[in-house]
């Protein structure tokens, strides 16, 4: 067990700064996620923690120990990759037992000891019955569990997982998410997990660090990240379909004690909470973000507001995702299946009150957090 601390950790490849002064604190036994698109610097960060690449600036601590220059073998971390690299000629049992039989540890464990440990890890991974199988007889999810077992058997202080389920199909990924989250709880091992999949991070993490182009954008719990994104990058990256950012200029209008937003004729009431947040800001130009489920469509054909033409209707489970062309923008709207729009329909568009997000158009920072 150990906590992991990064203090302005930096990784450079020539002139390219892959990880730019990233500071984060992964607490003991926490399930910590690093979320970002490809090229964000996720894997470089993980490799610095593992010791698989040099640290070009800042500090990395595991437990209380500065590990910048410590070799990987002495850090007591275990890493699981997307590719499982199992030994095809060994049984599941021997694959999991392999690290215990390594020359460096060969004398540490008696055969009975090895058996007991493999059985325990196997049971936790729900592979207890399959220990005699060969890797070729396993499904993708089962192979991934063997690879995890091989990492876990060493009882590392820190467990590093680099996109471990990215290549599995949607159904298996759904299943493995729940499994991995439950396993992490049971083992209680501090774990750091990278993924480009926002749903995976929201679902499984205790804490998420969102990074892009080597820069840390936000650290928070899944609900903080989703409900209070720190900037427009996080807002756009987390949530599916992604948040809409209409390009209409946005103005604050005060009238008769009521403050509202105006976007090219669309009036949006704002709550005292948002008003108070705005009062604390000096931001001049605002950018509005609204999630697909917070846009309302109606068949009203008159009255102030926005009108758009339905560009496309897609069914997603028991919802519709409607793409509607409004002004210069395509907005995506999530509606119940009963809202039966067809391509070409002219609809009125409004925003659910108090559900808009506001960002500084210059810096991209949220003005609400």
């Amino acid at each position, binding site marked *: 067990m150990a906590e992991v601390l990064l203090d302005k950790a930096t990784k450079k490849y020539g002139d390219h700064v892959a990880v730019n002064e990233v500071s984060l604190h992964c607490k003991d036994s926490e399930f910590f996620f690093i979320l970002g698109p*490809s090229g964000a610097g996720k894997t470089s960060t993980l490799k610095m923690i593992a010791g698989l690449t040099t640290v070009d600036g800042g500090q990395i601590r595991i437990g209380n120990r500065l590990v910048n220059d410590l070799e990987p073998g002495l850090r007591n971390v275990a890493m699981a990759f997307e590719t499982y690299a199992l030994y095809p000629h060994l049984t599941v049992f021997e694959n999991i037992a392999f690290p215990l039989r390594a020359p460096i540890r060969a004398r540490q464990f008696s055969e009975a000891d090895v058996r007991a440990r493999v059985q325990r890890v196997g049971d936790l991974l729900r592979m207890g019955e399959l220990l005699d199988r060969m890797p070729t007889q396993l499904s993708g999810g089962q192979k991934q569990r063997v690879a995890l077992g091989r990492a876990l058997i060493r009882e590392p202080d820190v467990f590093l997982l680099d996109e471990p389920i990215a290549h599995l*199909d*949607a*159904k298996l990924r*759904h299943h493995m*998410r*729940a499994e991995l*989250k*439950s396993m992490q*709880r049971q083992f209680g091992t501090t774990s750091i997990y990278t993924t480009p*999949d926002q*749903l995976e991070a*929201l*679902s*499984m993490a205790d804490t998420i660090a969102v990074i892009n182009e080597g820069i840390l954008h936000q650290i928070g719990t*899944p*609900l903080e990240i*989703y409900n209070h994104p720190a900037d427009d990058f996080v807002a756009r990256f*987390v*949530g599916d*379909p*992604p948040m809409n950012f209409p390009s209409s200029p946005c103005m604050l209008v005060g009238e008769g004690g009521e403050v509202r937003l105006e976007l090219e004729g669309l009036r949006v009431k704002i709550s005292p909470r948002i008003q108070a947040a705005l009062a604390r800001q000096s931001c001049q130009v605002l950018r509005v973000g609204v*999630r697909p*489920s917070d846009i309302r469509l109606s068949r009203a054909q008159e009255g102030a507001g926005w009108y758009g033409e339905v*560009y*496309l209707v*897609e*069914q*997603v*489970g*028991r919802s519709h*995702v409607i*793409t509607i062309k409004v002004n210069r923008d395509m907005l995506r709207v999530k509606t119940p*299946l009963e809202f039966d729009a067809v*391509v070409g329909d002219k609809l009125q568009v409004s925003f659910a009150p108090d559900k808009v997000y506001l960002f500084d158009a210059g810096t991209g920072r949220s003005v609400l957090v």
Partner: protein
Amino acid sequence: MADVRLEKVWKIYGGVVEAVRELDLECRNKEFLCLLGPSGCGKSSTLRMIAGLEDVTRGDVYIGSRKVTSVAPKDRDIAMVFENYALYPHLTVYDNIAMPLRVRKMSKSEVDQKVRHAAEVLHITGLLGRRVVRLGGGQKQRVGIGRAIVRTPSVFLMDEPISHLEAQLRAQMRVELKRLHIEVEATTIYVTHDQLEAMALADRIAVMNLGGLQQVGTPSELFDRPVNQFVAGFLGTPPMNFLTCELATHGDQMFAQGSGFRVLLPEATRARLLSAKATGKMQLGIRPLDLTVAKAAGSGTPVAARTFVYEPQGESCQVTVQIDGQLLSIEADGDFVTEAGEPAWIGFKSDKLHLFDSVTGANLVL
């Protein structure tokens, strides 16, 4: 424009492997039909037989009123788009799209008009002068589709054209493909293993498994009225839950009863089960959306369970609970918060519940 019909079509490889078994299928004129199924289900073999790239072992393929079973691919008036685009990398986008027209010796001005129109529809007008090697994956796929469009074929055949693109680009291309279909109005048969893609794109979906057709219907029909357990389990993420149960009657009431739960069945369901004389073990199927969860027992949530994993997902959340060792996933509102180990109380929306025959997998309550 044309419809496509398959009549009792078989594909048998090497005299033994039945890749497609006695397939009867119709794609209507101007329809977007998805062939959906896991790998090895026969969907690509089917598409390739329609294209003429595979021989038909038995049965017949019709395009419009014409039997094309033995017609050469180039004479079938179809255009095919693959996952790998097979473009000429060192030619420009313009020349790639123009290629099939020049082969037909079309006049220069006519070629130009057609290429520009296709580029406009696909939003790649700005890329016409660029060489293909310098394009991204989504752009290349648009060029591939452009080359198919200019031929104005009767039928478009697409084999997983966007499955290799990354998620956001795929979602964007999905919108474009469907929009393209609306604008071009060409009969389209589209192969995919991705149920989300099929649901979003198709007018109708044909689900295949192990070489056989399982069901054809609109996305809603397949989602809410699956004919068997395979279709029920294949469509929808998170997937439908299945629990082993038996029927129990108590006076006028009928219940589906299993280890740790008992659900009252609606009258219509009871009537159907009685007329089908259903007995013995069966599989109760219910979608995560059609379960409700609460922290306390209530009239709507009478079944005791325990939370196994809680996954927040923004506007919704996923709760996996355990009932007597069986795992069940539930989709609930984002403001429902719980954690592993906590008690949970579950309710079944009984009008959304399916019962499948344990042996044949057939849906007993349709």
